[in-house]
């Protein structure tokens, strides 16, 4: 179905400024040193001010004409709003610039008895709202477009009757460029009819491939792809409630019902859910959302329900929820795991572990969970990287050097006394406490990666104080450089 808004911009403006309704007004925009009319209202058009005229010429014809500056991009915004409104009639609505909408109504019309009732309902609603709309229904978007704009007959094209419907229409109904239209005009093609009977190679040679494509699209020989304004979600479950739902238990029952329906479908298709969004539409018109993510695809109702259970507290029912929509925003193929009588140790690939981490992520946030892999850097702060997935294996071996079990996020400055400049320290003071050092290993020099950042190298020592506590201290830079500083960087076990 194609909907044509004949005075889209002016109707939209008149809705916002009711005082304009009774006046002939136009939208104008400067084009090449002339002020040109880009859209004119119905009254203005009746009195002779058409789109494309210079504003000055139009004023001569209609003295009381009101001219308003046009803002580009307005049409797309208006069409989007209208398209969203049309979502109540069909899930797939596409914008057809500059002034139309295309709706895929397959399987929707019978809800309004038939196509005639469906069309009447939409057009009447739009006209009552103040938009001068015309619509047509056909098998193909191309034919519907042509009929809605140019036909003077019935707006409903019967199944398979596109060629008869468009035969008597002018070539402009084929959505062609002005140059081609001009050439067709010159050659005397007043209607599309003669074009239909001409051989394709002749048409291609004279008018290019565009004309053929448009013809085939109108006749349904080529598929035309619509870009829906709201992309349809393939896995979605809806649960309307007879009475608005307000209690926690009721919300939980609703979630469980939706999940079991969704999981049944996922299971049958061998898919696992990675991300789901629960939309609760309340009776005050607001929508509250809760979403969950999993580490690995899952179609287990009990597990997914547990994840949602943590989110239920965040759903505010207010006066009541009348519709629950559960969308699976991300699904992936799942390998089916055979259930075993003996619980074999599957290590990191264990489903129970993945489910545990999902729950933890739902409660405290996914960024708290980390798995580390070795990175090929000597600089301690860069020597580990965070694993992307649960099953990612290290590419290189872990380093063998002795490293402190607790590393301070930022090295902390200490006061140090050493016997000989390059020796390990004899004592150090950290947080007001003096540690006298009995044994030490080192130095281990770790240089900076000059291609990443500048600065001094570090000379690390493993030191043990008189109580047996072991620390990782380092001197930043050379002693004779004058600005050598000592830091504590970690604790050994």
């Amino acid at each position, binding site marked *: 179905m194609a909907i044509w808004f004949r005075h889209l911009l002016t109707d939209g403006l008149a809705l916002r400024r009711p005082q304009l309704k009774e006046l002939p007004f136009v939208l104008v925009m400067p084009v090449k040193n002339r002020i040109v009319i880009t859209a004119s209202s119905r009254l203005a058009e009746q009195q002779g001010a058409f789109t494309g005229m210079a504003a000055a010429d139009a004023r001569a014809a209609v003295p009381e004409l009101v001219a308003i500056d046009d803002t580009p991009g307005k049409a797309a915004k208006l069409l989007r709003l209208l398209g969203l409104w049309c979502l109540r009639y069909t899930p797939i609505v596409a914008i057809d610039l500059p002034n139309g909408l295309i709706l895929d109504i397959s399987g929707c019309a019978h809800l309004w008895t038939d196509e005639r009732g469906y069309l009447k309902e939409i057009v009447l609603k739009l006209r009552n709202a103040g938009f001068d709309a015309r619509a047509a229904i056909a098998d193909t978007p191309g034919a519907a477009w042509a009929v809605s704009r140019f036909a003077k007959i019935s707006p409903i094209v019967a199944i398979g009757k596109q060629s008869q419907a468009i035969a008597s229409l002018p070539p402009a109904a084929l959505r062609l460029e002005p140059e081609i239209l001009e050439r067709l005009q010159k050659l005397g093609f007043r209607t599309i009819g003669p074009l239909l009977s001409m051989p394709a190679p002749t048409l291609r040679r004279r008018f290019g491939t565009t004309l053929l494509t448009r013809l085939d699209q109108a006749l349904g020989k080529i598929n035309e792809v619509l870009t829906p304004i709201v992309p349809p979600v393939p896995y979605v479950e809806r649960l309307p409630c007879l009475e608005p739902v307000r209690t926690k238990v009721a919300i939980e029952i609703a979630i469980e019902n939706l999940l079991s329906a969704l999981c049944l479908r996922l299971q049958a298709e061998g898919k696992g859910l990675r991300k789901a969004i629960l939309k609760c539409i309340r009776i005050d018109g607001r929508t509250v959302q809760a979403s969950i993510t999993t580490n690995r695809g899952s179609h287990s109702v009990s597990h997914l329900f547990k994840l949602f259970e943590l989110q239920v507290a965040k759903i505010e029912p207010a006066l009541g929820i009348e519709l629950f929509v559960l969308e699976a925003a991300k699904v992936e193929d799942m390998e089916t795991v055979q259930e075993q009588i003996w619980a074999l140790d599957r290590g990191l690939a264990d489903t129970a572990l993945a489910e545990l*981490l999902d729950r933890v992520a739902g409660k405290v946030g996914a960024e708290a969970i*980390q798995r580390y892999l070795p990175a090929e850097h000597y600089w301690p702060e860069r020597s580990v990287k965070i694993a992307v997935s649960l099953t990612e294996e290290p590419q290189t071996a872990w380093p063998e*050097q002795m490293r402190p079990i607790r590393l301070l*996020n930022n090295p902390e400055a200490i006061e140090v006394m050493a016997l000989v400049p390059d020796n390990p320290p004899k004592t150090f003071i950290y947080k007001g406490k003096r540690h006298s050092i009995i044994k030490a290993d080192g130095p281990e020099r770790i240089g900076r990666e000059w291609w990443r950042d500048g600065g001094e190298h570090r000379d690390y020592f493993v030191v043990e104080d008189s109580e047996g*506590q072991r620390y990782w201290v380092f001197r930043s830079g050379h002693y004779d450089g004058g600005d050598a500083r000592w830091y504590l960087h970690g604790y*050994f076990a």
Partner: protein
Amino acid sequence: MMAEAKRELIERLQKDILQWEGYRPPASDARNTLGLGSIEAAFPNGVFPVAAVHELVCGSAEQAAAGGGFVTGILSTLLKQGGVGVWIGRSRRLFAPALTVFGVLPHKVIFISLTKDKDALWVMEEALKCVGLTAVICEVGELDFKQSRRLQLAVEQSRVTGFVLRNDTQLNSTACAARWQIRSLPSADLNGLPGLGFLRWQVELLKVRNGQTGTWVLEWQQDHFVIVEETVMIEERQVG
């Protein structure tokens, strides 16, 4: 004669009580040791309780590090059969590459860093219920009796080993199977070589359910524990 019969009776009763409390005597051929040597003898039936929660008292940052090292050493034997460990810590202080020294592959451990005790204990309880895990280590500030009881109950179902590194010095009673305190000790000279020797700790078993407390001096050499010195407090078990 009478005294001997009485002793036998008491021994049998003690064994029964242990069994009722959930300590099964190990099958004689399948006895897994953790390489802790005579420390394991301090536990009921002479087996380190794997399906239990152990608490380690760590008063300072140094003690926390020592406790972490000791736990990692135990973890290395637990992880030898495969499996995964979870380490719940505070604000990303733990340095993963250090675990290699203790024979644990750091990528086999999942780190969860949290700031609140409440969250940490919630995550620990959930993790302890998860059968797929081998061990869960958690650093918390405080642990009260109720919380420790919940952890212990979770463990009894799943048979996961739990370690709680407590950061407070106030010692209230808990339901944990054992309470440890680990302190670092100066390392011994290695045949007159300069530098540091093996890591050495004083391991104190402050409290153990149905077992004997004691103090040991332990070293980590290459890939196993070595007991240097031991003092076991032999005391009569309080019955009733």
